């Protein structure tokens, strides 16, 4: 019964993002929404990573760093080696995962606010590195990155060349949504498998977890590297759309937003960060007309929401019905 309802809601969701949204955009002719929704999908992948670090009991305010690194890895590979964007995507993720192991090994020993403070610095460090390193061409950034080329395996074209398409915006939308669906399926599976149960044990009591034989240090690094992989592919995806990257492409504000997305959607729900990203992104845009009061109204609303719904927007579902 529960399995059926899960399959049903997944089906509805997939129909919605793959069919209903494109149809709605085509009829309303609001083609600008493609860019917005593509951005939301990609940002929600980075937020999903942050959510996973919350799941092991660590507040991660440094996801922007990995998005920036992932973006640069992809941009450099595409422009310098002519590698297909599609191959740079997993490479960017893997690079970030490796990097996060090196960074995570020392800093994941910290807990609570201390870990959060260190991660907050990471984004700034990444930005300064991008400014200073010779390979990233400093503040000029890397521009006119070509659109994703065709992906061929054994001569069969799996994905066509984006520059040959009549509507690359739609193609990017499908790319981002597919990445998002896969990322959240992986996240869902992690949470519902033993790996997730162990992460929860870590979040609730690290001493007890190690007393039942869990290698807590290793598990923390594993979760953090998966989280950073998500950050890396999201960054790479973003750079493919904007066709450019600068040291300021991902900043501390973005890192904070990734974290807020998780809070807003709900830390107890796998779909929390996705909903949070959607609400935050659109909320900010909707308030654009209020001009210089935008940030004031926006922050006030955030504070009120957190007071009213400390467990996130999705906790509304638990209140009303018996669904989980």
């Amino acid at each position, binding site marked *: 019964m529960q399995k059926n309802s899960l399959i049903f809601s997944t089906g509805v969701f997939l129909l919605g993002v793959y069919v209903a949204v494109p149809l709605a955009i085509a009829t309303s002719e609001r083609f600008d929404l493609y860019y917005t929704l593509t951005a939301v999908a990609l940002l929600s992948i980075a937020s999903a990573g942050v959510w996973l670090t919350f799941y092991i009991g660590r507040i991660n305010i440094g996801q922007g760093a990995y998005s920036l690194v992932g973006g640069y890895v992809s941009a450099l590979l595409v422009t310098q080696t002519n590698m297909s964007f599609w191959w740079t995507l997993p490479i960017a993720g893997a690079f970030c995962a490796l990097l996060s192991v090196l960074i995570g090994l020392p800093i994941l020993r910290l807990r609570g606010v201390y870990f959060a403070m260190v991660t907050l610095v990471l984004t700034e460090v990444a930005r300064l590195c991008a400014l200073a390193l010779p390979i990233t061409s400093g503040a000029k950034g890397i521009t006119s990155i070509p659109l994703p080329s065709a992906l061929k395996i054994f001569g069969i074209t799996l994905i066509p060349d984006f520059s040959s398409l009549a509507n690359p915006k739609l193609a990017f939308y499908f790319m981002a949504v597919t990445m998002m669906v896969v990322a959240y399926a992986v996240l869902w*599976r*992690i949470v519902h*498998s*033993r*790996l997730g*149960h*162990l992460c*929860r*044990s870590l979040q*609730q*009591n690290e*001493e*007890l977890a*190690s*007393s*039942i*034989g*869990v*290698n*807590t*240090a290793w598990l923390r690094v*594993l979760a953090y590297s998966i989280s950073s992989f998500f950050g890396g592919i999201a960054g790479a995806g973003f750079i493919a759309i904007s066709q450019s990257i600068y040291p300021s492409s991902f900043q501390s504000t973005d890192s904070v937003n990734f974290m807020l997305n998780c809070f807003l959607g709900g830390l107890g729900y796998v779909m929390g960060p996705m909903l949070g990203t959607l609400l935050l992104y659109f909320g900010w845009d909707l308030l654009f007309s209020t001009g210089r009061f935008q940030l004031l109204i926006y922050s006030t609303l955030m504070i009120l929401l957190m007071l009213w719904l400390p467990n996130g927007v999705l906790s509304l579902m638990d209140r009303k019905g018996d669904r989980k």
Partner: protein
Amino acid sequence: MSILLEIKGVSKRFGGLTAVNNISFHVSEGEILSVIGPNGAGKSTLFKLIASFLPTSQGEVFLRGERISNLAPHTVARKGLVRTFQEATIFRSMTVRENIIVAHHLRSRASLLGFFLDTRLAASDEAAFAESADNIIEFLGLGAIRDELASTLPQGHLRALGMAIGLATHPTVLLLDEPFAGMNHDETMHMVTLVRRLRDERGVTVLLVEHDMPAVMKISDRIVVLNFGEKIAEGTPAQIQSNPKVIEAYLGAEDAAIGL
């Protein structure tokens, strides 16, 4: 009986303070051994040293002849020595049954990737954990609260759950940290019976640290007495009760404190 756990000249210094000074004793297979002593005698520190939650300053701990001191706590658990905690240490936002199932981690044959992909081995592991968890629930009489959230349980149940978590790892030696603290007479007697059954029915060797003298006298095969970080006596309950050094250590609390 063969020696299972051996503590050899273990010391722990915190700066200038020697909390545990050159302590040696052993625990035989199938034994229930208690470590007692007045407040500040170094019992809890010794306990953490044995379970490797603290590094020793000197000396070593052996489990079946293999050195386990100064290893990571999870490695020690893997080798079969598992501790419980003084306070209600449980996974708060899981149910009783989920707590016990997750504690079966050491029994997994499948890898984490295997569990992620839901392989056949992983599925059979999960089924085995569930069965074993139900066994433990029955053994400890937790059936009525199996689906309760752990954070909502009263003290007595929390202590039992802590023990259930320890049991789920299938330990060779279980270290119980003050299992009777804060319990009334009936609850204590119930716990004494449980610890006995743990040894008799499940073959678990038990090392416990405790304040409650009547309970210790009742439950222990042998007792080790600490005072100011040093071992002052070791023997059967009867020997300990008549040991002048022990009586002196508890001076002020009079003979009644350790007599039954």
